């Protein structure tokens, strides 16, 4: 089963990368952009038989390594 772990900086944590991207998009002529936030996705192929078990495994990996809970939040979804 494939799962996708999405890791984003917590609300309130400054996102230098998002800020730089927003700025660059502005220079390219994309106007009126609101906040830009940048994060990571990690796609994993886990040994599970159903989506529920796969998501549980993904969450365990996110807690153990993939996200740093001081600055980041994560979400996990099963990919078809």
């Amino acid at each position, binding site marked *: 089963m494939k799962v996708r772990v999405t890791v984003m900086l917590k609300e309130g*944590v*400054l996102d*230098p*990368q998002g800020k*730089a991207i927003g700025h660059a998009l502005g220079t390219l002529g994309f106007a009126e952009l609101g906040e830009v936030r940048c994060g*990571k996705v990690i796609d994993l192929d886990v040994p599970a038989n159903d989506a529920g078990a796969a998501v549980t495994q993904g969450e365990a990996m996110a807690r*153990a*390594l*993939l996200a*740093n809970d*001081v*600055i980041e939040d994560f979400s996990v979804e099963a990919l078809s």
Partner: protein
Amino acid sequence: MKAGIVVFPGTNRERDMAQALRLTSGVAPQMIWHRETSLPSLDLVVLPGGFSHGDYLRSGAMAAHSPIMAEVRRFAERGGYVLGVCNGFQILTEAHLLPGALLRNAGMRFLSQDCHLKVERDGLAFTRRWTSGAVFRAPMAHGDGNYTASEDTLDRLEGEGRVVFRYATADGAVLPQDRTCNPNGSARAIAGIASENGRVCGLMPHPENLVDPAIGGTDGAPLFTGLIEALAA
């Protein structure tokens, strides 16, 4: 002083650190591979700079889970001295041995340049050769050195005197918004912090690269000579 330097896959400033310790203490430190599950008898453990595991995912994240880190944690809990420089600082925060985290530099670029550090807290083993307010020069070389922590944590660090070094101008002015003297955008211009007991210290710049008059000067040497003094006592 018996010092050990932990080497992770991708660590690359272990030789610089060994040279600095050898030059200041006259004794060569031991190199410790990250897969080891016990530490030899040591006075000081150093986590040096580099790109452990390529700095992939997050700087220091994978190294924080290396087998040796459980031992480093135990060593720190028993009151041992730990110094983390650059990637070593990142690893200490990822291992929760120090609070906060190091984000991508505000300007998004790797920064290799000299900076000036103001000593905010003297009297620690790491800073006893300076007095508070002293300013020294150190090279910095990192992409992820932008220190961040919650406002509460920052206030606590300040209140407990655990902010050890701040980025400053050559004459000691601290200007957090000014990228010429706080180049990576760190919160409150924090460059280095310490644990509650003052024995675990992490900082981003590289004092170990300024200990030899032949290689640019000796501005970083007091950190090491102070440590040697403190740990010999």
